[in-house]
């Protein structure tokens, strides 16, 4: 789960990491009031969960409270990369001597956390890594003894700091790691972490992503999860989340339902291979009941872009007869307006086929053949 910048900053402050002074505004006048209190040039930042906000026009500068109000009005009526802006963070503009980067994330190959820092902050870490890999410092953490003070000092030293500045910076890194551990973070990032002209450090922008599987340990974010969903997801994706279905909206016209993430991904690939475009990813999971199948089918049919639905089931713990019943039940309830291609093999295959054939629905048994057929229908019946 992604946190908004202002939420992440509240946590950073709690852990003793300096952030610019400021406040959250949901109206232009409120933004003006915060700027008046700050009594200095400010930055007005759209609170959205998408990355690359700056380039998309989500960060504006203001010299006066009036300018801050105008900037807030502009942002609060805007959409940044498809996300509606609900609030803006108004902060004192920080003077910059140098922009640094420090991120903590999960490294799959070493099966542990990795701390990544750079003296060239301000742009995306992937860009830094591509443009100047020599400017990146990485420390892989052994989980039996964790991220130690000497690790933090080594990093600060490699970023060319010495004396008390080096120690201050190391302390910030240690606190950042503490956040990562205590919030079950997938990513904790300061970018940029600014060195000000007088030598102090301040985290000007922060990101915090919490591991969804660990949310039961952080009940305070339960409500936020729903808000995030409403911000970022399509109506179908939202409905799927509520029903416990794995659904991703894509931009083609062949609706897809299958059982198992890998099988569904491969199904999308087959559709593309035969010249079609998938409309979605939908995994009904293992052992789906007729009700679950009906729910999934309803969801895919509710997408107006879908011209044909391709159902690809390889029954293991999933039973083909349950899938067949779910399909017929949906048809009985809403009546089909869209053609379907069904591939059904595995557990209780004969019974599933019988149910569908008696209902006048043709069943195929090769995934490739079915993918071809679905693409044909999508391209000819447009």
């Amino acid at each position, binding site marked *: 789960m992604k946190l908004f910048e202002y939420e992440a900053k509240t946590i950073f402050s709690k852990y003793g990491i300096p952030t610019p002074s400021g406040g959250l505004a949901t109206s232009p006048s409120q933004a003006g009031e915060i700027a008046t209190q700050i009594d200095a040039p400010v930055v007005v930042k759209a609170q959205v969960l998408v990355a690359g906000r700056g380039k998309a026009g989500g960060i504006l500068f203001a010299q006066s409270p009036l300018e801050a109000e105008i900037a807030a009005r502009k942002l609060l009526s805007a959409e940044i990369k498809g996300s509606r802006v609900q609030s803006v963070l108004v902060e004192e503009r920080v003077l910059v001597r140098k922009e640094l980067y420090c991120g903590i994330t999960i490294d799959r190959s070493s099966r542990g956390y990795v701390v990544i820092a750079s003296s060239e902050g301000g742009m995306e870490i992937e860009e830094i890594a591509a443009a100047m890999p020599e400017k990146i410092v990485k420390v892989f953490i052994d989980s039996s003894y964790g991220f130690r003070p000497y690790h933090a000092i080594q990093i600060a030293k490699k970023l060319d700091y010495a004396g008390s500045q080096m120690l201050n910076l190391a302390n910030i890194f240690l606190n950042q790691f503490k956040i990562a551990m205590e919030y079950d973070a997938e990513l904790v990032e300061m970018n940029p972490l600014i060195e000000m002209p007088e030598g102090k450090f301040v985290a000007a922008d922060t990101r915090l992503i919490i591991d969804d599987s660990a949310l039961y340990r952080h009940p305070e974010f339960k409500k936020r999860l729903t808000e995030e969903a409403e911000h970022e997801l399509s109506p179908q994706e939202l409905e799927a989340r509520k029903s416990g279905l794995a659904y991703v909206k894509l931009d083609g016209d062949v609706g897809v339902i299958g059982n198992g993430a890998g099988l*569904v991904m491969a199904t999308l690939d087959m559709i593309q291979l035969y010249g079609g475009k998938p409309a979605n990813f939908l995994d009904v999971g293992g052992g789906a009941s007729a009700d679950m199948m009906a729910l999934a089918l309803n969801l895919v049919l509710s997408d107006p872009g879908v011209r044909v639905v391709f159902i690809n089931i390889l029954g293991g713990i999933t039973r083909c007869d349950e899938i067949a019943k779910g399909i017929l039940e949906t048809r009985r309830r809403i009546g089909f307006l869209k053609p379907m291609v069904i591939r059904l093999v595995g557990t209780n295959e004969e019974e599933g086929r019988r149910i569908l054939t008696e209902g006048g629905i043709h069943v195929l048994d090769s995934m490739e053949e079915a993918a071809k057929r679905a693409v044909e229908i999508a391209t000819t019946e447009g």
Partner: protein
Amino acid sequence: MGILVDNHTKAVVQGITGTQGSFHTELMLDYGTQIVAGTSPGKGGTQVHGVPVYDTVEEAVKKHEANASIIFVPAPFAADASIEAMEAGLKIIVIITEHIPVKDAIQIMACAKRHGVNVIGPNTPGVITPGECKLGIMPAHVFKSGVVGMASRSGTLTYEVAVGLSARGLGQSTCIGLGGDPIVGLTFVEVLKKFEDDEHTKAVALIGEIGGNLEELAADFISTGGYAKPVVAFIAGRTAPPGKRMGHAGAIIMGGAGTARSKIEAFQKAGVGVAERPSDVARMLADALR
């Protein structure tokens, strides 16, 4: 024959009294797997499908000389169960549980390294050596004893390919689900090493997907050390958009890394055949073994 599990495997089912644990215990017993004990704290002394239940793994291991464990306990307790099994001396741990926090998975893997344990999963369908031992939740009927070693990051896609191999009479020596999570125990590289040493395995099928770099590491391993047996790979997710999780927690393209293209190119460079369609895997392996 095969690797990791065979007819000498004696397994404990952790979480045997739960719905899933009990259901799959019966199916594993039906297959002929030696399930010697189960655990469920507070339910020691009872039985599930004739299997004695204990409060702790330590007791179960002492009484029944178990050497493997399969874990069905809910995510919040899965790390505890895994570490308990490893400290009790079990060397093969299959973690079926999905949605284990990454921080917990990291702890599990650190413990496995210290104790020299082969962890399969989390979020895996398990491991099967057809005809001998099924330690998992996969549908048994798609597998036939044979010569192809399989390792996969996806359940149903494995069954899809296994059906093809069985139909061509190639069958499988052992089939391992590595797990769909970002942090998993056994990887393609470790499994490739084990298959290379197994005399019954004549060829290897690798089923990968987007996310992470396990496939790239496998390609690197094959191209640098050379590999004695034919390998064919299939990668799911050529059409997956970046930044979206495709069903599995681990199936996500982040910051341009973990794309299907990068994995396919890595395998092709290493001289590994990459199947365009799942059904091509069996055909390509049959050609290679001819």
